[in-house]
């Protein structure tokens, strides 16, 4: 780790971590006692449930509907029982279910057979994901020197997966290390995952397993051609957090947007549902070696970057704690923040640099994800380019891990191909010209930046203390985050949460808990 520039008080950082632990503890207890329709659908997918019926309903959704209230016992035993009773493979069973077989109505075999079969299915799933992890590790190691630091992240969003492929391959050739495929508007509010390749979307492309596969293949091809491992990103957020995570694990995605509270605050998804779902989702990400990206940048599109900087830092601490509780190591935590200072503020650059440096010093192992200016981008593309240069400057000089490239035409239209090129060219200029800048400078003692970081850390602790006093559920209800109130029983998806029965059975959840060394809170 590089030497501290901000001279932050280590005891205060430890205190903030302790508070986050206390804040998330009651939530963890709730999580442990509950399952959701999304978790059960995920478990089914892990066993091989996939496909759709004649009207497009996904098999995992059909099975969960068949099981109904009995999801409190877990979906695994129903699906495994059907496999055994019918003597079918998952592929064959999926076809039977699509044709109308109700697996909830089949008499149960002796439970020992189910457990035995479960071990086999867990083994098959784990082997697939482990092979993906090994493949990625090999490629990343081999092509290490071609990577930019920070990794350059570009977005494509045409709505048509085949068009996305062309743009993504071009972006990779221009120098991007990471390609994200933005999802179509509103997908996060669907309580199912669409199926197959898709060519229509609004403002983005559906996240489907087939689309993941198509893009993965295309980026692997381009990667081999240019001698680089191109990372692929998609989004877990929404009502299908764990389901999309498992699709990402199977299709070797490398990063996934996965925030513990984003769905609640910005999508009005029920808080209980989100908390229960995010844990399993992050467990899967962790097992698959997928870097999560948290969504703190969203706070600053609502609130002022100077006044509310502490909400970003507080959310980073909370996201970190939830991530640890899901067995996710620090090196997979792409905690987020954004360059959203009003460009008219005197010394705004210094305040921003203090914030970015502080994030790096508090979370030294985390590949922090830094988001470009959006709020204050206008149609003045020339000023936009200048702002992006300052943004790149801070990203490099504070050792951010993931640099989401700014587009000079932000706020005008979805990027033209040349806009991405100009974004990459700008970043590469800064990254190369300032390669060792960070190592070569120190911050002035008690100067503007040190003072700013100290103030924000103090405000963060104060805020975390307030949350801890009332508890996280109440804090969200009483507008303490993002200036929006989300009632405990409001929002979407609460009906999909169920208290686990005493003999709830989920061999995949248990397997991941063991693999990831997750310690339960107990009731």
């Amino acid at each position: 780790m590089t030497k501290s520039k901000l001279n932050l008080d280590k005891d205060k950082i430890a205190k903030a971590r302790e508070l986050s632990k206390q804040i998330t503890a009651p939530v963890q207890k709730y999580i442990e006692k509950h399952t959701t329709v999304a978790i059960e659908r995920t478990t089914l997918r892990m066993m091989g449930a996939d496909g759709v019926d004649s009207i497009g309903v996904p098999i995992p959704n059909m099975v969960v509907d068949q099981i109904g209230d009995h999801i409190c016992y877990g979906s695994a035993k129903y699906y495994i029982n059907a496999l055994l009773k019918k003597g079918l493979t998952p592929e064959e069973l999926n076809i039977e279910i699509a044709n109308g077989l109700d697996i909830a109505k089949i008499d149960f075999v002796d439970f020992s057979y189910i457990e035995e079969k479960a071990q086999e299915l867990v083994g098959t799933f784990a082997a697939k994901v482990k092979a993906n992890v090994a493949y990625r590790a090999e490629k990343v190691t081999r092509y290490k020197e071609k990577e930019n630091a920070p990794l350059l992240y570009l977005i494509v969003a045409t709505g048509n997966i085949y068009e996305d492929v062309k743009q993504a391959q071009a972006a990779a050739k221009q120098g991007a290390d990471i390609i994200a495929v933005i999802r179509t508007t509103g997908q996060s509010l669907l309580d199912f995952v669409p199926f197959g390749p898709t060519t229509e979307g609004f403002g983005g492309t559906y996240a489907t397993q087939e689309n993941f596969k198509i893009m993965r293949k295309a980026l692997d091809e381009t990667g081999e051609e240019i001698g680089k491992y191109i990372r692929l990103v998609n989004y877990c957020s929404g009502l299908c957090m764990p389901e999309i995570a498992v699709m990402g694990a199977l299709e070797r995605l490398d990063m996934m947007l996965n925030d513990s509270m984003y769905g609640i605050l910005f999508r009005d998804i029920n808080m209980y549902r989100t908390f229960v779902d995010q844990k399993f989702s992050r467990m899967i990400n962790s097992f698959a070696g997928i870097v999560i990206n948290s969504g703190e940048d969203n706070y600053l599109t609502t609130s002022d970057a100077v006044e509310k900087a502490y909400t970003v830092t507080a959310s980073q601490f909370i996201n970190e704690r939830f991530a640890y509780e899901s067995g996710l190591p620090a090196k997979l935590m792409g905690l987020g923040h954004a360059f959203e200072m009003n460009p008219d503020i005197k010394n705004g650059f210094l305040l921003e640099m203090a914030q970015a440096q502080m994030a790096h010093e508090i979370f030294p192992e985390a590949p922090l994800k830094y988001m470009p200016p959006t709020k204050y981008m206008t149609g003045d593309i020339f000023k936009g380019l200048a702002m992006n240069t300052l943004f790149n400057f801070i990203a490099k000089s504070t050792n951010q891990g993931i640099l989401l490239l700014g587009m000079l035409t932000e706020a005008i239209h979805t990027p033209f191909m040349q806009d991405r090129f100009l974004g990459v060219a700008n970043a590469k200029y800064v990254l190369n010209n300032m390669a060792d800048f960070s190592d070569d400078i120190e911050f002035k003692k008690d100067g503007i930046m040190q003072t700013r970081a100290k103030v924000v850390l103090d405000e963060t602790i104060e805020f975390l203390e307030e949350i801890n006093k009332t508890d996280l559920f109440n804090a969200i209800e009483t507008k303490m985050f993002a200036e929006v109130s989300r009632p405990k029983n409001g929002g979407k998806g609460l009906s999909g949460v169920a208290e686990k029965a005493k003999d709830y059975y989920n061999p995949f959840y248990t397997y991941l808990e063991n693999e990831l060394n997750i310690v339960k809170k107990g009731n």
Partner: protein
Amino acid sequence: MMIRPYGDTLNDGAVQMSFTLPVAHSAKADEAAIIFGKKLGFKEVEVVHSNPLSDEFTFFVVYGKTEISIDYDKVVVEEVEKSLDFYGVNNFIKENIKRKIVVVGACSGTDAHTVGIDAIMNMKGFDQHYGLERYPMIEAFNLGAQVTNEDLIKKAVALKADAILISQIVTQKDVHIQNLTEFIELLEAEGLRSKMVVCAGGPRIGNKLALELGYDAGFGRGTYPENVASFIVEKMHERGVK
């Protein structure tokens, strides 16, 4: 007065352009960019920079001079009614209404499709346009789907709503017309109609239909949250709401 673009000398007609052509980077590609510039009507076309974007695309920075000029005296601008943006709406409320306003929205009747009301109200909004929940000067309550007209009115009264938004996606057998009509009748029966700005929205709902049904406005396809917010605050101001 005849005018044309100004580079460094009056009437030189200098214009800078940048664009991408779907061809590989080569001398031929540069020449193609020059020819394209000339076809646009420019003289002295110069490619000052070109760069490959991929094997199949090249980016150009091009300068040209135009001989086209326009008569500035004959330029007429039509005063278009412009919707306020996110900041404009919030400032308008601060300056004119001087308190936060309350907006209640729902997908009412039997309609279960919240995509429209979510696009307008959710924090995230859509297509980079923030939803009403994100407006600091608006208290937005999205009641979700299948809210009965009675419940919607009850909730609106309890929350002291300044405006009600009703989204109707399903329009089979004109179910939306019956539902929208019933709502307005109920609201009038309660004596609340004049106290609230009431808007309807949906892919098949236009302003004309909404006005006919007794609503203050209707918003169809392509509406952004700020269009709705803008209408509400200006209507409230027009009615002298404080």
